[in-house]
């Protein structure tokens, strides 16, 4: 298993390791990496992890699809639901969910509505987002954009579509956000977490082939780097074999 680990594969493995057996979780529309992570966790250590909350349960796709709302990918699954059941799940919450956006800021807030201007007169109008609930009704969520630049990692988002930690513990409390919120930000370059006291994002580990200086240079705010930053534990041979042979048979994550 000497073929180079791709950045997306590294992301998948980091996320999979944090999902526990018996949990319930899902991913939204753009879900290539999250769905691979869930599948990997189910194969390796979480056979009782349930994929659910997004209108289907435990899909068994023949290969990875870029959209998990593709009925080709979902045609084979254990059960289907509709938006009425999703309404209920959104209130009851999941154990975990995944998000990414146009902009991410230093408190893990996510913007999908507009960059520049105002909502009514936007510089650039984004897609918006469907479900705003799982980010705080669920026990935790992960932020996992597949690019990491100063353009999408900014000090403060222009519009908070998906609340992360807002501006810290005080604001979070005032808004009634009671759950953990974003736990990790996992990108092709690195893993970030949040300072428990301030809830500001900080660099946790850098993937092989990256340095903490490079990661900081591609981030539009201070990542609080103090001294050496560990390297993200590389995928084990077992992780990589299972990922490539059972989940991503067509190599989408390496494309």
């Amino acid at each position, binding site marked *: 298993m000497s073929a180079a680990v791709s950045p997306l594969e590294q992301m998948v493995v980091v996320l999979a390791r944090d999902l526990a057996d018996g949990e319930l979780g899902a991913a939204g529309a753009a879900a290539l990496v999250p769905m691979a992570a869930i599948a990997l966790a189910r194969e390796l250590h979480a056979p009782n992890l349930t994929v659910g909350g997004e209108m289907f349960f435990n899909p068994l796709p023949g290969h990875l699809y870029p959209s998990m709302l593709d*009925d080709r990918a979902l045609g084979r699954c254990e059960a289907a639901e509709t938006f009425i059941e999703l309404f209920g799940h959104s209130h009851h919450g999941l154990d975990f969910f995944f998000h990414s956006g146009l902009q991410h800021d230093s408190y893990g807030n996510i913007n999908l509505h507009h960059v520049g201007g105002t909502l009514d007169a936007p510089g650039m109008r984004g897609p918006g987002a469907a479900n705003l609930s799982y980010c705080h009704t669920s026990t935790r969520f992960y932020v996992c954009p597949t690019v990491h630049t100063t353009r999408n990692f900014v000090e403060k988002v222009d519009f908070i579509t998906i609340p992360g930690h807002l501006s810290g513990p005080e604001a979070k409390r005032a808004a009634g956000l009671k759950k953990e919120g974003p736990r990790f930000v996992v990108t092709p370059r690195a893993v970030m977490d949040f300072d428990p006291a301030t809830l500001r994002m900080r660099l946790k580990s850098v993937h092989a082939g990256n340095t903490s200086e490079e990661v900081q240079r591609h981030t539009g705010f201070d990542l609080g780097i103090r001294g050496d930053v560990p390297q993200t534990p590389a995928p084990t041979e077992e992780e990589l074999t299972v990922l490539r042979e059972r989940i991503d048979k067509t190599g989408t994550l390496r494309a």
Partner: protein
Amino acid sequence: MNDQTKPTRRSKVTRLQDAAHLARDALQERPELCLGGLFKQGRPVALVRGLLAAGAKDLHVYSSPGAGYDVDLMIATGAVEQVFIPGVTLENRLCPNFRSAVEAGQVTAHALDALTVVGGLMASAHGVPFQPIDALRGSDVLKHNPLIREIDCPFSGRRIHAVGPIRPRVTFLHAQEADRWGNLRHLSTMVYADQLMARASDMVIASVDRIVPDEVILDDPSRVTVPSHYVDAVVEVPYGAHPTASFPHYAMDEDHIDAYADLGDAARTGDRAGLDDYIARHVTRPKSQGDYIEAVGGAEYFARLEAETRKR
């Protein structure tokens, strides 16, 4: 006495153009149009094209919480005034004409979330004056969402949200099968909000891949997703969801949507000729779905999309 004396039940099978005119006239009374399916799946695109060809204007467009190609196309033809859809995207890229029109202030795209839309449809379907929502916190969408308000919860004492009924004047759905009475069967695994919309709307018009004999319905009533009671007209349209998918009959046509989006991106930078030509070839000029199928690439082209659904 024999069976001939039994009076005749009225069929709901309608021609595409007649259905489009029915919808256009209803929407002139109240412009709230709702579209079934989700993103690139099970969207009633032939009905949308028919409505655009019939000359609909100033529409308020609703949908399940995620939409893309069809809404963008409606905006490209100038038929839309307001969009009440939480997520508008082609998934792999942004919707070019949606972006342009919103950024230019020609179309209002309300900031909404899924629970508001689903909750409003639920209130309408259930016949109650509002649906409580207790899962919205911290998002800037709450500051702009025009459909919700804060209420005092009489049970918990807390401040929660509520949304009033969303009652579309017309809903377009696409299903795989129906009988002539309008009983719909979704053979796709996912049905999204189609059933809810049918129950929430004044008028429902459905396109289907094929009309099936009465016995197919009667022999398996549990498989009916939308009873005919909710359906006003049903139209048999081959590839009526194209370029979105009608699983398990045919897959989404991602190449077609991408080519369309390229034309939209060109229009954003000032070159609208390609987009106008696309609209003429696919919306304005076809006199029938047969013409449309030819314009897209003919039977052989669609056979590929059919084969694609069997590949998983």
